[in-house]
């Protein structure tokens, strides 16, 4: 069965290529445009991995990350944080909150795909 990926970003110009890329790699894709919508989507469906932007309306990516890690029912969910802030302190914060990977924008699509594949244990 295909892995499911939740994309959380409020920029349509970034969501469009991300969605295409993930579908091209054979994943099932869902999209949420803000932090609260991301948590709502997690309640509805159980993705295997979340691509999580940091700067989001309503609830930011760090808060979403913390909420996911505080909830035992989402144990095992992989979190890849995506951010336009390249500072090391930001990356440190994301990883401390329990993100599995931290990718800065602009990213290489090949690199992103490779990291997601690795997080999900190889097969699509």
């Amino acid at each position, binding site marked *: 069965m295909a892995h499911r990926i939740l994309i959380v970003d409020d920029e349509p*110009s970034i969501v469009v290529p991300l969605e295409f890329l993930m579908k091209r790699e054979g994943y099932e894709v869902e999209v949420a445009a803000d932090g609260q919508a991301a948590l709502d989507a997690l309640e509805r469906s159980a993705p295997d991995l979340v691509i999580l932007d940091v700067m989001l309306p309503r609830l930011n990516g760090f808060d979403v990350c913390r909420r996911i890690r505080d909830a035992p029912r989402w144990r095992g969910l992989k979190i890849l944080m995506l951010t336009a802030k390249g500072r090391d302190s930001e990356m440190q914060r994301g990883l401390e909150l329990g993100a599995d990977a931290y990718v800065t924008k602009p990213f290489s699509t090949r690199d992103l795909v490779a990291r997601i594949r690795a997080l999900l244990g190889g097969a699509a």
Partner: protein
Amino acid sequence: MSTVTHELRTPLTSIRAVSEILLDTPDVAPDEQRRFLAIIVKETERLTRLINQTLDMAKIESGNADWHTSELDVAEVVRDAVDATAQLFREKRVTLAVSAARPIPSVRADRDRLVQVLLNLLSNAVKFCAPGAGRVEVRIAPADGAVRVDVADNGPGIAPGDHETIFERFKRLGDTPEERPQGSGLGLAISRRIVEHFGGRLWVESDVGKGATFSFTLPLDAPAPTGDGEPARAAG
């Protein structure tokens, strides 16, 4: 600076991702290709606007902007700005009314810069108006040793706590992601500096649900703006 970097990274991310997909994917459907290419064009425009406005802001702040000051009929400059934005108003079916008290004394300012301020206020007004039901009113009147221009809209309004925030760089309140490419987040910050350069003020009066009125003044006998580009208010 870190905010500018963030604002630049977003369109760059989009352009890079879409381009790499087009390069790496052998069988992208033609309509999908067009959609991706349109994203590249749009994000490139967004980047250009952002770079231009950031440079413009830096120029004004460092005192290196060129100011071409001349005697201006504000009503005539308003007419030019209104003509330039007519299409925006038509597309969104927002009505635009202009009223000018007569006679209006002339002021000394930079014509292109004044147009820039008016275009910013008018395009903001139309952006936040409801399609088909929006109404924008521009009023020009003498006021206490100055000419005052009001741009009033019947949009959603702005909470008093945000009245100063919106003049800060990259502080956007109501833009939806679809609208965001149109706004660099610098327009009001630049407009305020332009008005202040000529000794005037730019502010907003508004409340949630009550529309917003952006007003600026240009003093009639403005002190000659200093050569090093310091805002004229510093000279008073």
